[in-house]
């Protein structure tokens, strides 16, 4: 059983999706139960996989027993195991949240198709992570994206459908560019297996086809991960998607695209190619730095809380890319830790926004006055999540900031440290604004100034149900737990980074 774990982690959610559809017309539909159980099982399996990888090295699983490079190979190593745990965790926690929220936002009649797609999306994401085959990666990329396009369109606002259409067009362009890259590598080497490619490529590094294919991979996946300037589709899609889907899109989908990019860069093309043959360092430095600043700057102008969080993702992707540009271990550790940190924090922030929408339907930031007194738990969660995003010490956000800054100094790129800090400051400004409104501005009707004792306590607490409050709270607690017990993510990330960079 345990030896089939790498395939089970993918198959379980995909099968769940079919089972949900099969049960559609029956009396006992259990669509939410099946989804949650499937994602939870995947999470447990991924934990076990990570444990095995950590103790006894990478797991290679041959699909159908076909030996690579002819057959498809699934690889769980210290990098994919780590990302798998993060993504399965977030998708599981989010599916817990989905129970109540989806019924309200999608309508009773559409819950079945919603959860079927949700499971499919999850399965596609897990597939991207575990696969060791370039073409298989494309297929999973499209499975998850197609499910994602459809799910964005479920959003309550009419505009969500348009967002979904634009997302589809751009996403497909990105995937097609990736596919051309796969084709070019195949022409040159006759193999699609990542490990095999990494053996065959060094001999033909200087070939223009190989270099062009690299560029196609990077551009294609940059579109998928919404790296500036390919971010145009993201704010609409992430901002207008249903409450349950926004966290998955922002915390899993674009992170997994970033994962795929790092895979292609370091496992297929080796660090020697990325840092010596092509000017990737310079491009990533520029791309990441500009994404951080512009993303954070654009976030400032937003008046809608979900749109603000969506724009913030554009900036956060910049952090991950920036860490790659230093070409050193520390910077890469920063990127890898940031994948974890951003995933759990952004998911929790989006989930809190989801509870807000569930309870009040409000998304405009200016109308959130006094929410801290109405929904204290949710807003406390939001505040801690925001502090994590800013990178306050003792949260995971600080670790990645620390590692990125040290990586920059190690690489002699001291001028990037102010950029990182400026971005953190901009984060502080836009989150600070929300926190101030939520906690300390009161509704106009109540008036200002000194109040009779106990008056504030009269504002009735109107908290969202527990199944909506708990999921984001768990994620935020994890950010604190792993911000203090930082050696856990850091050790894992260091292992992954050493493996990617081919260091002993």
């Amino acid at each position, binding site marked *: 059983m345990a030896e089939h774990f790498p395939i089970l982690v993918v198959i379980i959610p995909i099968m769940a999706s079919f089972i949900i559809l099969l049960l559609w017309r029956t009396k006992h539909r259990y669509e939410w139960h099946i989804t949650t159980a499937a994602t939870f099982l995947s999470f447990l399996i991924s934990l076990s996989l990570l444990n095995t990888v950590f103790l006894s090295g990478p797991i290679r699983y041959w699909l159908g027993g076909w030996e690579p490079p002819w057959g498809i190979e699934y690889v769980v190593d210290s990098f994919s195991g780590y990302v798998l745990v993060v993504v399965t965790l977030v998708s599981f926690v989010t599916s817990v949240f989905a129970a109540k929220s989806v019924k309200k936002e999608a309508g009773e009649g559409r819950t079945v198709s919603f959860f079927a797609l949700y499971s499919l999306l999850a399965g596609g994401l897990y597939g991207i992570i575990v696969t060791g085959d370039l073409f298989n990666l494309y297929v999973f990329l499209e499975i998850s994206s197609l499910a994602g396009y459809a799910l964005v369109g479920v959003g309550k606002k009419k505009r969500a459908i348009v967002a979904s259409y634009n997302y589809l067009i751009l996403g497909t362009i990105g995937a097609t560019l990736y596919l051309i890259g796969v084709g070019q590598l195949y022409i040159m080497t006759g193999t699609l297996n990542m490990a095999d490619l990494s053996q065959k490529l060094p001999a033909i590094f200087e070939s223009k086809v190989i270099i062009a294919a690299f560029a196609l991979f990077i551009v294609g996946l940059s579109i998928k991960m919404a790296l500036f300037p390919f971010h145009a589709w993201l704010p609409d899609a992430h901002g207008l998607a249903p409450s349950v889907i926004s966290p998955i899109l922002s915390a899993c989908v674009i992170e997994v695209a970033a994962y795929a990019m790092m895979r292609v860069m370091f496992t297929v093309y080796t660090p020697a190619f990325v840092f010596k043959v092509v000017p990737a360092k310079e491009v990533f430095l520029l791309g990441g730095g500009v994404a951080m600043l512009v993303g954070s700057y654009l976030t400032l102008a937003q008046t809608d809380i979900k749109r603000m969080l969506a724009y913030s993702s554009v900036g956060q992707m910049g952090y991950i890319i920036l860490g790659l540009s230093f070409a050193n271990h520390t910077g890469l550790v920063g990127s890898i830790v940031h994948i974890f940190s951003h995933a759990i924090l952004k998911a929790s922030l989006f989930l809190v926004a989801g509870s807000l929408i569930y309870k009040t339907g409000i998304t405009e930031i200016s109308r959130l006055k006094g929410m801290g007194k109405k929904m204290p738990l949710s807003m406390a969660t939001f505040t801690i999540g925001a*502090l994590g995003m*800013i*990178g*306050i*010490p*003792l949260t995971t956000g600080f*670790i990645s900031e*620390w590692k990125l*800054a*040290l990586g920059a*100094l*190690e690489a002699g790129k001291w001028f990037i*440290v*102010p950029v990182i*800090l*400026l971005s*953190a*400051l901009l984060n*502080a400004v836009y989150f*600070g604004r929300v926190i*101030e409104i939520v*906690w*300390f*501005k*009161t509704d106009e009707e109540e008036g*200002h*100034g*000194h*109040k*009779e*004792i*106990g*008056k*504030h*306590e009269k504002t009735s607490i109107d908290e969202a149900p527990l199944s909506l409050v708990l999921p984001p709270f768990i994620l935020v607690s994890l950010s604190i737990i792993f*911000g*203090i*017990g*930082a*050696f856990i993510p*850091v*050790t894992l990330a260091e292992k992954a980074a050493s493996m990617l960079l081919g260091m002993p």
Partner: protein
Amino acid sequence: METVKSIAPICALLVPLIAIPFIALAGQRRPNVREFWTILASVIMFLIVASMLPRVQGGEVIEYQLLTLFPGLDLNFRVDAFGLFFGLVASFLWIITSFYSIGYMRSFNEHAQTRYYICFAISLFGALGVAFAANLITILIFYEILTLSTYPLVIHEETPEAIKGARRYLTYLLGTSIAFNLPAIFLTYTVAQTLEFSNAGILAGKASPLMIAVIFILFIAGIGKSAMMPFHSWLPAAMVAPTPVSALLHAVAVVKAGVFTVLRVVFHVFGIDLLSEIGLGTALAYFASFTIIVASIMALKQDNLKLRLAYSTVSQLSYIVLGASLLSGKGMMGGILHIVMHAFGKITLFFCAGSILIAVKRKNISEMSGIGKKIPITMFAFFLGALSIIGFPPFGGFLSKWYLVLGSLEANQIPILIVILTSSFLNGAYFLPIVYRAFFGELDEKLNDAHEASSWVVVPLVLTALISMVLFFYPQPFWRLAALTVKGLTGG
């Protein structure tokens, strides 16, 4: 110096944290129970801190390694003489302020008192953490906790002015910390490969003078809580907070955590040898002198009593930095002693300002004519506190200023000496007219039935006024700790 492991610093830190759930549970419905927990916590915390006094005075350093975030980043605590010095001041004044808070908050029927007491406890946790931190990262963490936990206190009134003031407060403190302090720590770590404080400094011989200077400037600019110009304007802005908050946090915990951090960095990161070699100490001294004089002049122009006190604080904080930056034994001694002397003097003045507000509902000095006849105890305590700040004997303030004067002579810095004397004169110029006007001015008729505030308010301020006098005659506990610190730094 002997190093011992003990859990005592952790216990002291945990006390306010443990108290929080009790305070929250008692809540608004049972204010007496809630305040009981606050006071109990403050007393226990002080006792634990004080229990370390004999050992530290005996030359021991109490250490406790809490955990390693990841290799290179440790959460370590070390109670040396200097840390205990600040810890004692902060935890002792928390007790007194707790009593005062009860009187003040109830007199005004303030809202959200539970939040107030909880945040107060967290900020004490932060201040004590700064005092006991053993490395730069630990001190940074507690520094940020202090910033964030005091933000709800500053914004307490929730009026538009309070929101504006608190926004400035947070912007300056968090902003400077992220923009300057953090890169300074990054650079320090890259250069020195460690962040642990050491008596000899950790940067000596590791980098070029230019690099040292850059890190130094980043640190001084980054520790915004020390209110050095031009990053001082958060302190007047924070005066929108209720008076007890201004008193404890903005005369003691927050600002002293700031100067404490500066002194830590100057003494234990750079080391006095390195600084005097490059001449950065003198540069800092002149920088601090500038703040002292300019802030004093600005204080003269303020009509709002709390604002005048705030500017006076800005100027007095720089005395401490000045003392340290003289890099002479006596100067450092004066700087360190000024932490406690100014704390007791200034907290008295703030308490009085709050008491005046309760008794006569006046905030502006020009409206305070003759109130001394109605509230003599408060105004007399104000007089005593003012004398201590100015540096008259027999008050604690005299001792620290005396050492500062000796230090400037020892360092051959006559201009600095002139600054200290001029500023003392200015201190008198902005404090004594208040007292004169209160006792000899014409009383506003509307205030005929004014009377002293409740004894919850008056007793604490009389107490702190008396203590600042006692400190002149009996400064031993603090004096010894300061002497130990200086001895450790100068090595003899």
